[in-house]
């Protein structure tokens, strides 16, 4: 059994950050120096995090690719994520990965990049933003539209503060609820409403979408209407994943194994399957 592929490798939590009431970030370091030295990931890929005695869960890699550490931003929803939330810095968990196909960063070079996310959809996109900032000159305009349901949901506040002030990023935030928190200085409404006022050169633009499937589909349709090619729109999908190896069958969407062919797909490929319930 190959370590990091079939067999989880021990990884120590070197830092733990509480982002919101239910969202936290684990900063991990592989215990085995040789495995750590060879570990490489592309923005948009994911790891299977293993909590001994509980099980595994697929979690996007949100890390800054320069840092040599592996960041995961996690929302507590079920058995593995709730138990992971209890762990202090210093604890050891298991990790397999990286898996899947991430964002097409080379295709984005020389183009304008529009990143639209909803809720914790920001986790997969964080690594894309980091990749852009690491080589900012390679990309055109970079727009980040982030929607959250409640203002307390805004994960990664510190990162956002940094990005909001960044001269090379155009960041806009939207909160969905009708009564936003008193200190909410940004837009109120669906993230899609931010798109209406967005400047866009369709032939120059590439879009990365992540978040709930309905939101991504609606955003993709809006972009198509404004002249962006379906093949230039990328979506990060979520499915039940148990193996991440293209073997367990749980992540199937039509003919695709989302763990292997995705989680990032272009809209031309995946669009026709998205509107179909239960495919």
């Amino acid at each position, binding site marked *: *059994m190959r370590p990091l592929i*079939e*067999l*989880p490798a*021990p990884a*120590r939590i070197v830092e733990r950050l509480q982002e919101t009431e239910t969202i936290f970030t684990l900063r991990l370091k592989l*215990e085995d120096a040789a495995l750590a030295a060879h570990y490489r990931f592309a923005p948009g890929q994911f790891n299977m995090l*293993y909590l*001994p*005695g*509980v*099980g*595994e869960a697929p979690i996007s890699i949100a890390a800054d690719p320069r840092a040599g550490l592996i960041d995961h931003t996690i*929302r507590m*929803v*079920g058995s593995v994520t709730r138990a992971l939330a209890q762990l202090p810095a210093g604890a*050891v968990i*298991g990790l397999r990965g990286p898996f899947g196909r991430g964002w097409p960063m080379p295709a984005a070079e020389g183009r304008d990049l529009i990143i639209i996310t909803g809720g914790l959809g920001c986790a997969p996109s964080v690594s894309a933003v980091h990749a852009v900032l690491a080589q900012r000159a390679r990309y055109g305009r970079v727009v980040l539209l982030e929607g959250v349901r409640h203002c307390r949901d805004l994960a990664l506040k510190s990162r956002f503060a940094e990005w909001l002030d960044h001269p090379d990023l155009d960041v806009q935030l939207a909160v969905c609820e009708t009564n936003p928190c008193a200190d909410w200085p940004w837009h109120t409404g669906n993230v899609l409403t931010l798109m209406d006022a967005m400047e866009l050169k369709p032939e120059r633009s590439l879009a990365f979408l992540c978040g709930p499937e309905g939101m991504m589909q609606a955003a993709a349709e809006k972009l198509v209407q404004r002249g962006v090619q379906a093949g230039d729109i990328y979506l990060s999908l*979520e*499915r*039940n994943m*148990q*193996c991440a*190896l293209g*073997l*367990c*069958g*749980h992540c*199937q969407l*039509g*003919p695709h*194994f989302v763990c292997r062919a995705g989680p990032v797909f272009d809209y031309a490929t995946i669009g026709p399957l998205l509107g*179909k*319930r*239960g*495919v």
Partner: protein
Amino acid sequence: MTHALFLPHARLDDLIRQVQSAGYRVIGPKLEAGVIHYAELNVAAELPWGWQAEQTPGRYRLHRSQQTLAFAWAAPAQGLKPWFFAPVEPLWRLRRTPDGFGLEPCLPDAKPIAVLGARACDLAAVARQDRILEHDPHYQARRQDALFIALHCTHPAASCFCTSAGTGPRASRFDLGLTELDTGFVLEVGSPRGGKLIEPLALAGATADQIQAAQTAVAAAAAQQTRRLPAGDLAGRLAACIDHPRWDAVAQRCLACGNCTQACPTCFCHARRETASADGQSAEHSRHWDSCFGELHGHLAGFQVRPQTAQRYRQWLTHKLGNWWAQFGASGCVGCGRCLTWCPAGIDLTEEVAAVLGEAPCGR
């Protein structure tokens, strides 16, 4: 069948001993718990001599027959899948240490098996799974040295449609191939390994009449089958029929029990399970067969991908007959008929796919 030999019924034990002494565990059909299934076998007397099996949608019955043949029945209750892709497979064992934990990989360490009487449909299913699990260490550990003594079918059940699935009744890849006649078997050598194995038996060549009789019997088995799959590009045609009303109609009868997926020799879906000891000091991580009919197959936080039975039945049928082509370059159905035999509601996939595809193409 140019170099065929003849193995009299009375010498089947010589073949079994020969295989055993070459280091294999012999697996063959046995009548146990009211069904014929593949099980460990030591002597030819354990084969289901003189039995026949009736298989129709939702029905499996064994009958005594006048002839005393060993293989006068069709697909065993379960295919060869459990012997290579285990229903439960431990993947690793965990032990806590003062500084974290250690993982010990679990790999099966069993003697290679030799299957006596492997059916064409089941060998085709093994070939399908070989493709899927090509890089899986657990599957390969069980599979890589396996030896196959095929049995070309002469007694298909009413549930069989291997002819239209293009997989049988004659097996295409084997080490040794048998066709049963009244007093013994016409035996073909399919690999150098198979040839070496039977050399010491010094069997006589089959006569032209015996060879002819064997060919006629297999051809008759093909002609006897009445069920069939529609011809043509099923992947494309089914993809166009996502909204067909038949999916809702079949869901009125389907219990979503998952028997079809458990009986199917090609289905590969599995779930992972972590079992911790009471003191929390150790755990075992294993995989076990799962089904796309199950409630947890498509569950996500706050979202169920396929909440309705109609969607699950559609997943099963369109995966088997359609999407499998894009994934693995072949159909996921080998025509063994088990899913209809073992369906408690007697749902017949050949009937369902015919109803969905109908005479007119969908969506036009």
